[in-house]
């Protein structure tokens, strides 16, 4: 049974200009022991879709889905208190914004111990010991002293580690890490990723890693889901994806990688992710796609087979391989 299963998830935000669809019929499945990466440019709905699964979207968001279930339990039908037993314990999330994600009025220690007490009933010195242990795990020096620090007394990177410590405090079965390393410098990025994958290997939890960084994807993930403008446009095992990207957007993303820039011709992807009011008809990527034709611009593309990476595209790349080879040769 899959740990997290999402089918046909859509999220609409009420904005002053009407409804804005931030996530558009996304499917996703993670099993225990899986590492799934979700990649895509800024604004492609990566965070929003995972916040929807956690039930953490603000009131202005309207979530619809055929299914959102955790280990067979339908999360949508779960009442408040039952859901709260799960969230933060079996299923937890590291947020993207480390500086603002911790409460400025409470100490680090308080904020870690709070979750230990909520889910594990740890109090007093047992909680303190565990909190120190967690801070040590995420590589915070002098953890005992840090317990009494306030978030604004620590750097962004330190705050991010505290967030990670909170998220892994109850050894979750599924951890969603939303760009856990963006606030950190490169050497620490590697440490944190190692920590997360190490923990994953040790506990067999499922890990969803949201990132912009294809390098990180290549190093850590097993499977990759590519999102564009709220839609999942492709999903493949990581090796296949790097080897044979099916959606032109994926190909463009890969080409944007520094070490690949010489091999392919797309150093950056021209254009921008469509917003609320410039959503194209047909394929959402068509205005930026070098292969787009009239069909792409007018007809919404189908989702292709698993062999074609579930690509949401009229002309998946390996189906039109000859054409690309020709163009690259020119």
């Amino acid at each position: 049974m899959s740990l997290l299963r999402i089918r046909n998830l859509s999220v609409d935000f009420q904005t002053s200009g009407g409804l804005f669809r931030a996530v558009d019929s996304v499917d996703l499945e993670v099993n225990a022991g899986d590492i799934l990466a979700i990649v895509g440019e800024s604004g492609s709905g990566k965070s929003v879709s995972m916040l929807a699964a956690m039930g953490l979207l603000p009131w202005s968001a309207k979530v619809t889905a055929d299914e959102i279930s955790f280990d067979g339990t339908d999360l949508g039908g779960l009442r408040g208190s039952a859901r709260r037993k799960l969230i933060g314990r079996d299923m937890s999330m590291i947020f993207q914004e480390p500086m603002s994600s911790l409460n400025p009025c409470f100490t680090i220690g308080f904020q870690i111990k709070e979750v230990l007490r909520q889910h594990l009933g740890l109090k007093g010195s047992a909680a303190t010991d565990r909190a120190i242990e967690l801070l040590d795990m995420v590589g915070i020096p002098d953890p005992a002293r840090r317990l009494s620090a306030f978030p604004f007394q620590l750097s962004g990177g330190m705050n991010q580690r505290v967030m990670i410590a909170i998220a892994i405090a109850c050894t979750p079965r599924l951890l969603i890490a939303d760009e856990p390393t963006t606030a950190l410098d490169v050497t620490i990025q590697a440490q944190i990723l190692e920590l997360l994958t190490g923990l994953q290997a040790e506990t067999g939890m499922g890990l969803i890693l949201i990132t912009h960084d294809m390098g990180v994807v290549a190093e850590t993930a097993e499977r990759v889901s590519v999102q564009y403008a709220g839609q999942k446009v492709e999903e493949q095992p990581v090796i296949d994806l790097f080897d044979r990207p099916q959606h032109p957007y994926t190909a463009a993303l890969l080409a944007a990688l520094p070490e690949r820039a010489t091999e392919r011709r797309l150093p950056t992807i021209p254009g921008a992710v469509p917003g609320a009011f410039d959503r194209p008809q047909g394929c959402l990527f068509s205005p930026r796609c070098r292969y787009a034709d009239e069909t792409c611009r007018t007809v919404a593309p189908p989702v292709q087979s698993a062999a074609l990476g579930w690509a949401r595209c009229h002309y998946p790349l390996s189906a039109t391989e000859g054409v690309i080879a020709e163009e690259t040769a020119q």
Partner: protein
Amino acid sequence: MLRFFLSRLLTFIPTFIGVTLVSFAFIRLLPGDPIIVMAGERGLTDERYAELQEKFGFDRPLAVQFWEYLTGVVQGDLGESFVTNRPVWDEFFALFPATLELSICAIIIAILLGIPAGVIAAVNRGKFFDRALMSTALVGYSMPIFWWALLLIIVFSGNLGWTPVSGRIDLLYFFDDVTGFMLIDSLLSGQDGAFRSAARHLILPSIVLATIPLAVIARQTRSAMLEVLSEDYIRTARAKGLSSGRVNGLHALRNAMIPVITVIGLSVGTLMAGAILTESIFSWPGIGKWMVDSIFRRDYPVVQGGLLLIALIVMLVNLIVDLLYGLINPRIRHRE
């Protein structure tokens, strides 16, 4: 913290001089000559008038009068009432506990009702409770105090006969001032029914005086909560699986209290203004009523001294609020 406190104390000095000047000028700007007012219907001869002018120092230039007043004030001498000839200090201290008791009750009512109301409204934003509460707050805020007081008197004192209309306690009871707070003194006196009587006298004026601060605190709490509730750290708190009571009542409210504390401090100033009207309506023997009576009598030293002391109290309360603010906001507390 100590340095913060001392620097705040330093800013008191110019404020203090300003307030002295304003209160000195204010009463003199009112039409009406205190000596004529004192003489009343009988009138008085020109010689007697000149004599009194000299006695009170009104014949000298204003600047000289102010300077003398200021030097007196600095030495703690606020002068004597023209009417009773008692030192302003003594009168103030005799009447102040009544006002303090009323104000404390009012602010407690305003805080105990206003903060929960604001929190509940924010959590249920846009729903019926929120709308109803905020409209009520708007009405409470904009209603003229005397009209509201009369309405309450008509209903609770007139129609229902539950509460007395004026004073602090039934004349039946008599006991010594120990603390000056009628609620406490009546208990200490051990007289049967004294406390009940004091409480019944206190309730209507407290409600009237609490109305505006209550509305202000409820609205400020609501807007501060709304802002805080959309913060990332509230999402974190919810992601921990905490109960909504803990998320709203601890994580959100603790942050929302920072602006609310400021507003509570500011409403102490409003409270003093409200006390003047409320005390007059309910014949509450406090400094508000004392000030109004003295203004009508053109009792210069009392009005000047009273205004100055009221201003001093407001400043002091604001200083205390600032200290509290530091306690509740770790960013300020830990600023080196």
